[in-house]
Structures are given as C-alpha cells and as structure tokens.
C-alpha cells in the first residue's frame, strides 16, 4: 500500500531531473553553499540568495532593521549605482524582488537562463560592497513606513495578528513584528542599517539556490568566479532568548474600523527539529489537513456549511522554523453569531478529535492530496526554489524533504488523536479578537460622495 503511494512521488522527482543526484550542491572556500536544482522544462532560471538573518536576530528598539536593510540592498554599490540593480535585471528581461521573514532575508531574480551569469555577478557585488548612503536611507525609511501603514496599520487582521504575537511571546523575539514598530522605524538611522549589513552579510552566513534550465557544473564555475573572491568573517554568537513556558490562557482584543469580528486562537506547538525522531509535527500537519484541507474538510463542512456558525474557519500551522511554533485556529462568525459562539464551535471540533479521533478515510484523503501536490509543485520553478530555501533556513537539509513526505505518509489516526490531546491546552493558548468599530462614529458605510 505504502509503495503505491510513494511511486508517483518518486516518479515526479525523477521527471525533471538529469540525474538522481539532483539537486546538486557545492560549498566555496569562503563558506558559501550553492544548491542547483536542474529543471529543463523551460529556458528560464531562478536565483535566490538566502541570508540566515531575520527579524528574530534584531534587538528591542531596533525592530525592523532586517527588513529596512533588505530595501537598502537595492540602493547601490561602488560599481552599481542607486536603482541600477533593478534596471539591469529589467534590461535582462528579468523580474526581481526580496522578502524578509522572522528567520531569514532572501533576494531573487527570475530570468531567461542565459542571463543567470549577470545576476550572479550582481548578487555577488552587493553581498559585500553595499553603500548604505544616508540620503538614500532618509527616503527609503519613509517608503518602509508607508509599507507598514498599508500592510499593518490599515489592515485590521494584520494588526490583530501583530498584537497577538506580542502577547503570545514574552521573551522570544518572535514577539516583534517583522516590519518593526513604527516608533523604531522613526528613530532608525543609516548607521543601524550599515552595522546590520556589516555584521551579517557575509558568504558564510548565506546560501544560494538556483533552479532552472542550467548545467550545475557551469553554475558552480560561475559561482566560484563571482562569489569565490568574497571574504567572510566570524559571526557574532546568536542570542538565545528562550520563551518561558506559558502557564495560563492569554487574551487580547484589538479595536479597528471593520464590519466583521475576527477570532484567532493560537496554541504553542512543536517544531520539527529531528526529521527521523520527531513525530508530533507530522501528526499535527495531517490533523490540519483533515480539519481544513479542502471544501468538505471538518471546519468548513461543520462550522460554515452545516451549523452556519462561521463565515469562514481555518487552521494555520507551519512546522519548520528557527524559533518556537504556534498553531492558529481562526475564523469569522456568521451573521447573528458571536465570537464566543465561534470559539465554542472550534473548541467542540477539537474535542471531537480528542474523543473520537479521525477516520481512516479522512486520513487517506489528506495523504492523497499531499501526493498530488508533490506533482503540482513541480509546475513552478519559483515554488521549488522557495521550498529548498525555506527548509534550509529552518536548519533542516533539503535532502530530507522526501523523507519528511514519507514520514507524513506514515502518520496514523492514533498519532493524530494523541497530538490533539497534547497540544490544544488552554494553558498554552492565546486568544486574539478583532472588535469591529464603525468608521469614525459616522454611519458604517459612506453613502454620499462629495464631488468637486
């Protein structure tokens, strides 16, 4: 039975590869790792440069500096002027951008394959030679504040999530928002960004993932040519801020202009550290699929469709990360229902798993979806590159991705019932509620337009 499931997975992995060794990897003398995932289905490529540095490495009072530096990375080096980086990528027919998370900062270009060399040259240049110009900084910090207004301050859901995490974590830096508190952005200087860059942007704190219609040997040679001469230095010790055990439920309410309330219930949850020995993170992932993996999964079927207590209900759980884990149940009550009704309904669904477990058919269904998604994800070079980069950022080797999939396929109903009993514990729970407010005391809907 198990082999039957695995067969399509192995096939899918074999389909786009030139050899069973794919992806290929090498490490330069300066410590930079290069991972090349050959995929020859289209004449394009993706380069992603991952730095093992994210908002969790920041300190209080300087929140957001990892993300601000990400913006400054486009502001030039002695050989590539401000704005020139984007211009060269565009001229090459490419698209580029970057993203900062709690755990890492990453930069990417999607290009026609023959332009990969130019992109490697550009990324190598800014890995060690960035100018952090004070004037450029002055403009860019305003852009970041606008980004914060757009993504967080004016988004009720994002604001709730931000404040909830600030309550759920007391000591661990996951309590700080990635984009930074507005007051920290207001006091940040170019020197802060420069210090961040100087400390953390070295080849021995980075790795590169390239997917595309390329020959790995040629890519390794280019990597040696452009990244090879860069010098690294010893990294300062990482802070170890250990989150103390939560010993009772926490609640936070956020008021914001909106029509509908939002409920988030966040439980402290395990993170996968040992692919072989750990089992709970796999069982929780399969539980999440059974509760919220398709339109007739338990939450949608029972809470939205049958009982009509929710407009929407879902679960979010990411079991790989550098820091501690959380599992979030979330939803919006249906018209005429309250947040308390929804919370009771979500709790009832968890109790049902704790008491009666899950059916073999439900688990089989979740596993079938997993198998299919392994094939579908091969359709995106970008997605494949992200997957390798992310798993590595969490400290797990990408070579274990297939093994993790096998482990998920081995999860039993008994294991799922056991994790449901173990982790949905009120003492490890933080509840966040969005309390919707009318728009400035005026009627909820602006009905009259003023024309000039």
């Amino acid at each position, binding site marked *: 039975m198990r*082999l039957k499931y695995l*067969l*399509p997975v*192995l*096939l*899918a992995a*074999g*389909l*786009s590869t030139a050899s069973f060794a794919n992806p290929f990897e090498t490490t330069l003398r300066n410590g930079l790792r290069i991972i090349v995932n050959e995929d*020859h*289905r*289209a*004449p*394009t490529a993706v380069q992603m440069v991952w730095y093992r540095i994210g908002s969790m490495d920041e300190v209080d009072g300087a929140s957001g500096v990892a993300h601000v530096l990400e913006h400054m990375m486009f502001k030039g080096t002695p050989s590539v002027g*401000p*704005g020139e980086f984007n*211009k060269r990528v*565009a*001229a*090459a*027919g*490419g698209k580029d951008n970057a993203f900062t998370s709690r755990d890492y900062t990453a930069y990417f270009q999607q290009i*026609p394959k023959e332009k990969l060399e130019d992109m490697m040259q550009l990324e190598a240049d800014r890995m060690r030679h960035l100018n952090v110009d004070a004037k450029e900084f*002055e*403009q860019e910090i*305003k852009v*970041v504040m*606008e*980004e914060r*207004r*757009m993504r967080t301050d*004016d988004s009720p859901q994002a604001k709730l999530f931000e404040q909830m995490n600030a309550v759920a974590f007391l000591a661990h830096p996951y309590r700080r928002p990635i984009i930074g508190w507005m007051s920290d952005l207001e006091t940040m200087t170019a020197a802060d960004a420069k210090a961040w860059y100087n400390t953390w942007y070295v080849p021995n704190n980075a790795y590169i993932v390239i997917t595309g219609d390329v020959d790995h040997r040629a890519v390794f040679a280019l990597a040696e040519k452009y990244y090879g001469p860069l010098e690294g230095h010893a990294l300062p010790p990482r802070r170890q801020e250990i989150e103390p055990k939560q010993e009772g439920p926490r609640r936070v309410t956020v008021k914001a*202009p*909106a*029509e509908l309330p939002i409920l988030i219930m966040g439980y402290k949850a395990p993170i996968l550290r040992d692919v072989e020995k750990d089992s709970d993170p796999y069982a929780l992932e399969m539980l999440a699929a059974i509760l919220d993996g*398709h*339109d*007739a999964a338990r939450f949608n079927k029972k809470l*939205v*469709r049958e009982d009509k207590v929710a407009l929407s209900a879902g679960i979010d759980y990411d079991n790989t990360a550098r820091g501690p884990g959380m599992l979030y149940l979330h939803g919006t009550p*249906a*018209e005429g229902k309250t947040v308390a009704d929804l919370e009771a309904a979500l709790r009832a669904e968890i109790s049902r798993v704790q008491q009666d477990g899950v059916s073999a058919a439900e688990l089989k*269904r*979740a596993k*079938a*979806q997993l198998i*299919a998604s392994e094939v*579908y994800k*091969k*359709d*995106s070079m970008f997605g494949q590159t992200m997957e390798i980069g992310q798993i590595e950022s969490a400290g797990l080797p990408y070579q274990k991705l297939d093994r993790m999939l096998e482990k998920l396929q081995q999860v039993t109903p008994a294991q799922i019932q056991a994790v449901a009993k173990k982790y949905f514990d009120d003492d490890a729970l933080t509840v966040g509620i969005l309390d*919707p407010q009318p*728009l*400035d005391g*005026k009627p909820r*809907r*602006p009905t009259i*337009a*003023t024309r*000039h």
Partner: protein
Amino acid sequence: MKTAMKRLITAAFALVLAQTALAGVKIEHWVSSSGARVYFVESRVLPMLDVQVDFAAGSMFDPEGKAGLAALTRATLDNGAGTLDETAIAEQLADIGANLGGGADTDRASVSLRTLSARDKRDTALSILKDVLQAPHFDTAVFEREKANTIAALKEAMTRPDSIAGKAFWAAMYPNHPYGQQATPESVATLTRDDLVAFHARYYNAANASITLVGDLSRQDAEKIAEILSSGLPKGAAATLPAAPAAPKASLIQLPHPASQAHIYIGLPTIERGNPDFFPLLVGNYTLGGGGFVSRLMKEVRDKRGYAYSVYSYFSPMRQAGPFQIGLQTKRSQAKDAIKVARDILDGFLKEGPSEEELAAAKANLTGSFPLRLDSNKKILDNVAVIGFFGLPLDYLDQYQAKVQAVTTAEIKAAFARRVRPENLITVTVAAD
C-alpha cells in the same frame, strides 16, 4: 519493483528531452460538435492536466438591479451537481488530489480543474467537472447560505479603504455601462434561486463557452474530453454585448475614511481586447508605470520622495473598453502632493512619450521576459485561455515579441493621445486629508 520504477523514470526523462527541444507554444484549436471553442496545448513533462472552461457570464451580464447575480451563480456552481451533493464533490476531488477553482470577473465566469493525468483520477475529476458545468443543483438551502455569506462579505468590503476606492472608481468610470454596476448588500438581497437558474440557463451554453486544456494528454483524448464537457450543454447563443461605454467627464471624488493612508486611483476607460492600440500602450506604459521598479512613477513617487510603497499604472483591456489606471497609497496628509506628482508625470508622458533610451529599455524587458510568461503549465493555461476567450489570433504569442519590437515613439504618443484624455480622467481618493 525497483527496476520497473527506474524504467519508468528513464522513459519519463526521455520525454523531457524531447519536450525542451520544442520552442514556443503549439496551440491546437477546434470547435466541438455542440459549438464550444476548444484550445489545446500538449505538455507531457509532468503527469498532470489543467482544464479551464470560460463562459461569457461575468458581472457585465448582471440584469439591471440584480448586481451580484453572475458572481453568486458561479460561486454556487460546485455546491452540488449531478448525483453529488457539495460534500461528495469536495471529498471525491480530494480523494484523487484534484483541485477545482475559478471564479467570475466582469467578463468571464471560469471553472478550472487541475488533476493528475493517471486515467482513473482524470476520469473521476472530469466527470465531476462535467456535472458542475451542466447540472448544478442550486439547492435552496445552500443558495440561502451562500447569499447570506456574500452579503456579509460585501458589508465588510465596504469598510475597507481599498474596496471603497475601487468601487467608487469603477462606478465613476462607467456611469452608464454594466462595468460600473456594483454588487451591494441590497442588490444581492433581492436575488432568488430562480434568478440563478435562469442566468445559468442563458449563459452557460456551448456557443458562449471556450475550453482550454493543457497537459499530459493526446489530441485524441483532448477531443473526447471536450465533447464530454460540452455535448451536454445547451447549444444556446453567444452573449450579446451592451453598447460600448462612453467616456466619462473628468471628476474628483473624495470619500472619508479613518485610515492612516489615502488610497488614490486615477484613470478612465480605454481599449478592448484585440485593439490595435494595445502594443503601443503596453510598451509606453512600461516607462510610465508598468515597469515595476524602473518606471517613472516608481522613481518619482517612491524613490525620490518616499511617498508610497506601491505605485503603478496599467492598461487592462477587457471584452469592452477596459480601464487605464494609476494607483497608489500614501500618508493621508500628503495625498494632494502625491496626486500632483502622479499627474505631472502622466501629463509629461502624454506630451513627450518615452525617451529613446526608455523605449529601448521597455522593449528589452518586454521581449526578454517573454520566456518567463510561459514557463509553467499554469502560465500557459492562463495565456491560452485569454486567447481563446477573447478571440485573439492563435499566433498571438508567436507574434508578441515582434509586435513589441515594432512599436515606435510616434505610435506610443498617438495611442496615448487617443486613449488617455485628461478631460475624461476620473480621480478617486479615500481617506485623503
């Protein structure tokens, strides 16, 4: 077992090599016996199949006073069909790892399916798709539930500054055309199950459909599948379009909101799909606000002044004249300044067009990035579905780079002068001081 697997893998790999030798996208086209237009791209690299069925059944066909009907019809299509209720549909699809998607916009109602191409899975998935297209239940209880949820979501949207701005912008650009008609809690409240049944009967027919298939499939199988999906549809008649939208009179609409940022839209109706001005406008707009980080709007509004995180412009050709749109969000106190900068850039561009250097950069990016538009089945599906639905030439993708390359500065200036007239520009702000 192991040897068999190895052989399979080797065989699959040989196919990969054969596939990459082909350049471009080969679109096969025919009309099904019931009259649906079919577009097929064979791609054997991955063992999967994508199917999309598009109907001219978007919100532009909402009857007067019944705004929201097209969207609700599409949304409840897969909540029970044929012999299956909504739970059985979702469970059977999940059992084989298939995904059903799609939605309705102003022009199109789409139903898309992604499935593994293994015969047993594919056939199950396609049989469900067929029922969803041809025999939706529109069950009364399900309909009432979805209607209530739609109304709640619309009320929520009416508290969000971006939604408020978007709705006001479309209403002002299209005062006497269905594109400007917005679903409201009140209009959705008037809808009945009979409305859905009638809308489905009128618009979900073969003459009004285009079917796109991309993936691990032979032409022969593609023909069979297209027949299965379309032969049970009524032959029907293609949707009739309303009169083309008239150009609106320039106006400024300011709406209050407590948000920290003002949301700003500037634009007007411009061209329909297939209009010959498309390529000059596309190439010109790259310099103005389409070229991401290198556009004039981005440089002046974001880089030089730090006014906004996101600022852009684009042309969105639709079945009938779709909009040209500039959008940005900025701290509410500096909204007026930001609008002035954006307008100055637009006016300057209308007068002078791009420089020779800018034109060359636009062409380099738009032609150079062409392979990135087609490097996955999903992207090929999206492109081919557009070609099929809007009736663009079958060699549209083959001609794309040459058409971009041929555009001149004079053509750009003339096309912008024809299509972007300041006397017709609508400006909407929400939460501006």
